């Protein structure tokens, strides 16, 4: 009986692992080594799926932002950093990274606004 119960549980755990992968394959793809993710052609697709989730950990969003930056896919990086900044508004470092990413993406006005907001400069004066 014990063996039967353990076997049944093992089968259920195996099925559960399958279901987990099916539900969260995008997150799982982003969890392998950084170099593998950078080289993964399906990264943009996985990153968009992750960014479309209602709930996702900061760790995964940071991974998306970092990989997107390395792959020079700045729009994805901006979206990831915007999510993090929205969840952690007290984190100035993220907003500076966001401003940097906006500049890299060529969205200079938004980058300037973000820099100004973070540095406490008035919107219509100061550094140009």
């Amino acid at each position, binding site marked *: 009986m014990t063996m039967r119960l353990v076997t049944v549980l093992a089968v259920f755990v195996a099925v559960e*692992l399958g279901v987990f992968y099916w539900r*969260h394959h995008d997150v799982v793809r982003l969890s392998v080594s950084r170099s593998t993710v950078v080289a993964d052609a399906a990264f943009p697709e996985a990153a968009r799926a992750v960014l479309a989730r209602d709930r996702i950990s900061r760790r995964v969003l940071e991974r998306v932002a970092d990989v997107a930056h390395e792959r020079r896919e700045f729009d994805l990086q901006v979206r990831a950093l915007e999510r993090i900044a929205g969840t952690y508004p007290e984190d100035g470092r993220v907003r500076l990274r966001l401003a940097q990413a906006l500049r890299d993406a060529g969205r200079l006005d938004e980058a300037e606004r973000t820099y100004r907001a973070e540095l406490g400069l008035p919107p219509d004066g100061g550094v140009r």
Partner: protein
Amino acid sequence: MSLKDRPSRHTALDADSTLAFVDTPLRRRMRKAAALVGLAVYAIYLGYRGLYTLNPDALAFSLAVYVAEIHGFFSLAFYYFQIWEVRRRTVPAPPEGLSVDVYITTFNEDVDLLRQTVRGAINMRYPHRTLVLDDGRRPEVKALCDALGCEYLARETNEHAKAGNWNHAFARTSGAIIATFDADHVPRADFLERTLGFFADPKVALVQVPQRYHNLDSLQHRVDWRNRRLYGEQDVFFNLVMPGKDHWNASFFCGTGAVLRRSALEPYGGLVTGTITEDMHTALALQAEGWKSVYLNELLVTGLAPMDFASYSSQRLRWAEGNLKIIRRLNPLTHCGLTFAQRVCYFASMYHWTIGFPKLVFYLAPPLILFTGQFPIAQFDRTFVLMYLAHLATLVGSYKLLARGTGRLFMDELFNMANFYTLLVASARFLIGRRASRFVVTSKRGGEGRDDRAALPHYALAGFTVLALVWSGLGLGFGVTEDVVGAGVATFWALYNLTLMLMVATFARRPSQKRQAVRFRASVPVELLDVPANGWLGVTLDLAESGCTLLWPRRLMLGTRLRLRLHLGPRPLDCDGEVVSSHDRVRSEWVGHGIRFHLTGPDAVDRLADALYNMAVPEILTRLTRPSWAVRVTRAISSRLLGSTKFRAPRYEAFLPMRVQTRDGEEWLATTRDLSQGGLSLVSSRHVPPGRLVRLILRSPDGEWSSLATVVRAMPMPGADDSLRTWLVGMRIDGHADVVGLRHILSAEALA
């Protein structure tokens, strides 16, 4: 004719005058205050939960948990109401000349088992007539009755099961008072003497005594021999709830170990039928007519508790289903004639069986949280945590204070886990309204082998919880979620429940009855009659009708046939036995041997059984009543504060045989119970008056020890049969004796 319609008669005794409080007035006030505080904080907590913490994102889940908590509040309120005042009874002398019938109901129980019950019933001292009501219509039971000299009654059908069997006898007998026992419940000789006195009050319809069990290795017992503590699942009911109900005149008939008045039952033709728990149904009907019930919390009868999980669950299902279905026939809330307190008490007894649903919610909640990430509580903030901790502290504190050392929260939770599915089934059957309920006789011997199918719901729940833990671990590991605090709380809760589930699984998987007969821990001196007499003595570690474990100073060869003399109190029993196993004791030279008896005829079995039920069982149940450490510490502190501390030398338990000699040449055997720095106590088959000087001799593998000792006290050991009376004798050892040497010989810790 109801009691109220009867003409008033002169009352020889008012049974209410036999009620006494268990606690002092101060303690009663303290306990009531604790109960009120516990309930008030619980109510405030529920109010806060309802107003601020219901989660609109998971409303159904949130409401289910909230309703389960509300159920718990009412459960606690009913419990505290029932034990608001815990009472005991002073026992009036039994009136002379009552005509008493004793019914023993049986269906398929072993004849060997029935034999001791019938003998116990016949041996009750108050004049009576014993009848065995056999629904199994077995010739061997009739032969047993003929041999023992009691009456045998059987019927053609099994209509209404036990109640029908009972009523069949009721119609054919005429005793004014009827005592009733199940086939496994062996009464003590003084059972009737202790219970009949209450019937001097003409309003008393029934007297119930607690159901205690002598098979302490049953599923519902946990024994801590070292700390002399016994947990019985039904202890709270029989030691607290029933004495509490007795205060409200709402104690009820529990089916066995009870005495009933015929005239009260006549309108119903005996017990009320129509449910599978005729006992409570009958008591409810009688009390609605104005009859009184009495609960006498004394050890007067012991029986067998279910040995395996399947039998246990089947018994609980019958109780739960039967008690719930009484509401359909006789609703205590609306039925005329009951007092408010009786209504609450009876309804509480039925409500108790509905905890299956709330428990299921609490068991499913953590895995659901782990799977979905949704919490039933919206604001899991500091205010909530403080509110919850205050609620938990007052709940646990008030529960422990009101339990008076009886309740154990973890064990109660464990048995709630064991019962949850059974109670769910019972509730479902009650709600769906299954027409015919079947009376299933509880197996007294347990099943033939391991049968853990009854635990399949627990396995399923445990599996579900494990999957949830894995899912949550994967989610946190891969970063799908980052709610570490929420997952941590749910994981802790899930692991707690999982521990309970696995413990229930071990219940279900333990082998059912290994031996045919119940083994009792009994320390009885033993002599081997055909071994050269070197003064060696042995002692039993446990004893059963089929054999014993014998501690002997030397190794005995396996297969050796022995002639043993068991010193069962004042009546030694000579019998043959065979060594079937042996095992070394670790810290001393004594060797334990498994001995199988070859008893010649039923007389020898009966003599052994008499000793077991009259000496061993009362001693064991009395010995296992040590208060919990918390109670002991509280008492020590309070006695220190009150300046009433009595310092006693530490005592070490030890069970070894001794010879006792007097100056005038008398010699007999006794067994030690404990040893202190300057003395010892032993159980003696003879009464020795205080002040008498005796010589004690002990031979052990380590050598011989002998000393003069003075008797300082002699108290009768519990037990009703005077012919088997033994005495606990306290001795002060002569100052010149080698007490340290004795302690070494006793190897107290190893043998305790």
